[in-house]
């Protein structure tokens, strides 16, 4: 059966319901398998259940599901992205709380602020992914410490013009990510 021509012929509502059927089918056939895949990766049942829900809600956001040939490969590709993001966020959250616990109490942020900060830090970390360490550090010092190019240069023992190249390179890298 040629599903493409059928889809072209039907109206949007029917297309939507066909999509829901596909998701339904994906869920029924593979949810246990995906759950055990996630559990193996995470070592935690609750997190695995959360990530599985995230995976399927991402699947639901896809426009076209009519062309999935390898359902498990398709699901693991999506789940892997979600998993990496989850681990990154968890790592950042732990590191940030650890950093905060070293600060005086008066500076403790509210829960809401904390959520927002961790979200922001996770995004930044993701955006800086793949940059060499010295370029990453130069960019972070400039953005967060507000020190001069010359100070960064002396910390890294490089010339000021190199520092400017680093900052420009980091910016371009981040823009391409966004």
């Amino acid at each position: 059966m040629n599903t493409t021509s059928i889809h072209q012929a039907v109206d949007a509502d029917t297309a939507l319901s066909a999509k829901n059927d596909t998701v339904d089918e994906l869920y029924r056939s593979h949810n246990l398998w995906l759950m055990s895949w996630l559990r193996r990766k995470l070592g935690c049942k609750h997190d695995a259940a959360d990530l599985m829900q995230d995976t399927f809600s991402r699947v639901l956001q896809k426009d076209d599901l009519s062309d999935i040939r390898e359902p498990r490969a398709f699901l693991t590709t999506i789940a892997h992205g979600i998993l990496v993001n989850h681990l990154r966020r968890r790592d950042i959250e732990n590191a940030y709380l650890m950093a905060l616990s070293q600060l005086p109490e008066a500076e403790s942020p509210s829960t809401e602020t904390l959520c927002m900060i961790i979200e922001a830090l996770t995004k930044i970390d993701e955006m800086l992914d793949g940059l060499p360490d010295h370029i990453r550090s130069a960019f972070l010092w400039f953005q967060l410490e507000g020190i001069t190019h010359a100070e960064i240069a002396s910390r890294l023992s490089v010339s000021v013009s190199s520092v400017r190249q680093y900052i420009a390179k980091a910016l371009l890298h981040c823009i391409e990510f966004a």
Partner: protein
Amino acid sequence: MNPKTTDALNSATQWYVFLTSGEATDSDRRDWQDWLKASAENERAWQKVESVTGRFTGLDNKASLSVLDRPKHERQAIFDEQRRRAIKHLSLLFMVGTSGWLAYQHKPWHGLMADFATATGEIKHVTLQDGSKLVLNTNTKVAVQFDKQYRHLQLLQGEIYIETAKQPVEQHRPFIVTTEHGSATALGTQFSVRIHDKQSQVGVFKDAVEVKASDVSSHSVRLNAGEKVSFTRNKLYAKVAFDLSAKAWTQGFIIADKMPLKTFVDELSRYHTGVLRCDPSIAELTISGAFPLTDTDATLKSVSQILPIQVESHTRYWTMIKPAQKQPS
């Protein structure tokens, strides 16, 4: 991405670096304005620069830096673990909690040497080979070394309580507990030893203990029941009176008698995985009663029914005790 956009982006980043270098003059800034107005593409490129740099505004600089500017191996440790499928380590991270994990990372030899250990929130009772009783408080590590001459415990971290067993006179072996700061020699007795805040502390519940700081060989102090002393490697502080209810933890309880909330929460946080803090505005509230230590969530809940406070949790790693919000009247 068409080449023209790439040009605009390159120019935009060059402009950003130049404008923030501290060397740009007013006339440079006018040139930049002209560049910006020259095309819609330039303007879009500039917006992209600002959307990246804007992500950094409003962040706590020091804490954010210490998170984002960690060396690569530390930042990605968690991914590597995952890649190696070292699930055991990940679950350990959660079992011992973040503070325990840090100690684990920084003092790996402790784990290797310890004969008995407890996780955060765990209290463990042990009977030693001579019949002495040993209780380990939360997050504690002890090494045991018994030979013909001595009964020796080395406290590596945390807190222990000991009830020494009586021995036949002819076979008497001194019972000694050492920490990195010094030693406590039991004279047939009940006592506790704790490492805390770069000091060690010995408190005596029954009979007497002799305490020595490790670098001051000539000086030692004899503690009787109801006395405690703090010491570092080279300093013994003055003895102070000691409340015997302080050993309630060995039964899994904390006994508070008009205890300031901050002290109470600090004490409770030793048993709590993650950060547990008390808002300064309610630090002075006082609390009395006996509360279980091994289920900190339940204890906090019951405290919130006694005092005008509320417990705010953000994941299991972050708990703040705050003033209760007033009910709208």
